[in-house]
């Protein structure tokens, strides 16, 4: 009797149980989904914050790598140019290059800088210190129309002298002027400082000749130079604090003869 009634009761109740159980499961599923969603939202926030942090770190790392490369190049130049005592400096300000080309560097009289010291990068000549402050200095770039640099053609068979000055017509490309019309200057010739004038030591690369044009007077010509230094991306540079003559190259032992 008992099993029969039990079976009957179960038969009646089981559909309700199924429905309630199914509903319970659904509610449980929805609750867990909501909980998960809330957790996911939190996780999402945390992950976003982490991504932002990693992006910032990545940016800092990229910047550090770029700075490292620049400083390594400058250090390499410092080690190779033994005739100069160099002081590393950083550009902290610059004015738009419409009429003049000047930058401000983070070294001044307190670091031993003086007026008319030459400024270079590992690629070549930048300009000279035109005004020294206590902790900063103004550097007149070779692109400035007021700047004049005594230069010569590096090619041994030429060695023609000229003056490199900034050109208002083309603020990014200075001109090598005062070249006699029959002088041996060719396109792609490398132009280096001549050492005349006492401001710029001899032998620093200024640029190479991109174009040669006749001067208005007819007796002279001038060369349009492409500078080796990219003045638009000038960040780290070096001031030549002391300049000595380049040491002679060591003598090579004569090859042994049998």
């Amino acid at each position: 009797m008992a099993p029969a009634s039990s079976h009957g009761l179960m038969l009646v109740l089981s559909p309700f149980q199924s429905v309630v159980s199914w509903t319970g499961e659904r509610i449980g599923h929805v609750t867990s989904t909501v909980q998960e969603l809330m957790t996911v939202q939190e996780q999402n926030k945390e992950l976003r914050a982490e991504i932002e942090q990693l992006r910032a770190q990545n940016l800092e790392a990229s910047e550090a790598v770029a700075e490292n490369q620049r400083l390594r190049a400058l250090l390499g130049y410092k080690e190779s140019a033994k005739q100069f005592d160099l002081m590393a400096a950083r550009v902290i300000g610059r004015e738009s290059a419409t009429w003049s080309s000047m930058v401000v560097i983070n070294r001044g009289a307190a670091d031993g800088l003086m007026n008319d010291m030459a400024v270079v990068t590992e690629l070549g000549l930048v300009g000279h210190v035109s005004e020294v402050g206590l902790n900063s200095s103004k550097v007149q770039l070779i692109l400035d129309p007021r700047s004049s640099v005594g230069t010569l053609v590096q090619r041994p068979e030429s060695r023609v002298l000229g003056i490199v000055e900034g050109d208002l017509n083309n603020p990014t490309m200075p001109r090598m002027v005062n070249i006699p019309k029959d002088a041996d200057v060719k396109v792609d010739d490398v132009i280096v400082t001549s050492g005349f004038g006492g401001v710029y030591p001899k032998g620093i690369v200024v640029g190479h000749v991109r174009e040669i044009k006749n001067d208005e007077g007819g007796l002279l010509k001038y060369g349009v130079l492409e500078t080796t230094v990219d003045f638009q991306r000038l960040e780290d540079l070096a001031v030549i604090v002391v300049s000595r003559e380049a040491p002679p190259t060591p003598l090579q032992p004569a090859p042994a003869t049998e």
Partner: protein
Amino acid sequence: MKTFGLWALLTAVFYVLQTSLLPIFSYGGISTNFMLLLTVSTAFILGARKGVFMGFAAGLLQDLTTGSYFGCSIFSYMLIGLGCGKFSTHVFKEQFFVPVLTSIVAAAFHYAMMLMFMLLFGYRFDIEAHAGQTLLPMMLYQFLFAYPVHRLVYNFDKRVKRI
């Protein structure tokens, strides 16, 4: 005194931005001239006397710190400050169109003044080519920044007056 200090601080902040941040976004070495925009906005908001003074201060700051041709920017900015200040009496302070437009004209005027100085100093160059290379990008930069700078100066002035 406090007002003066706040305006001096604003000028310094603009100057630092002009010489350190803007060159990164420059085109061929040309970028926005915040000192000029500041002079124009100040003259339109505060009148001729203060416009001339801002022109003097901004020009002095620029000429002294960048090693440019000393006095040229001072003179040019003072004239611009005076002109805009005199004209400001015809313009409502809430009206932004005229100051923004004037900033572009002021850039051209400043360029013409500097051009005149360069010729007086003895530099010879192809004026047409130079203007094509520099004046147009300069005016475009001024146009891009004129409105935000003028609004900022306008709001700054309102806040300073409340202090």
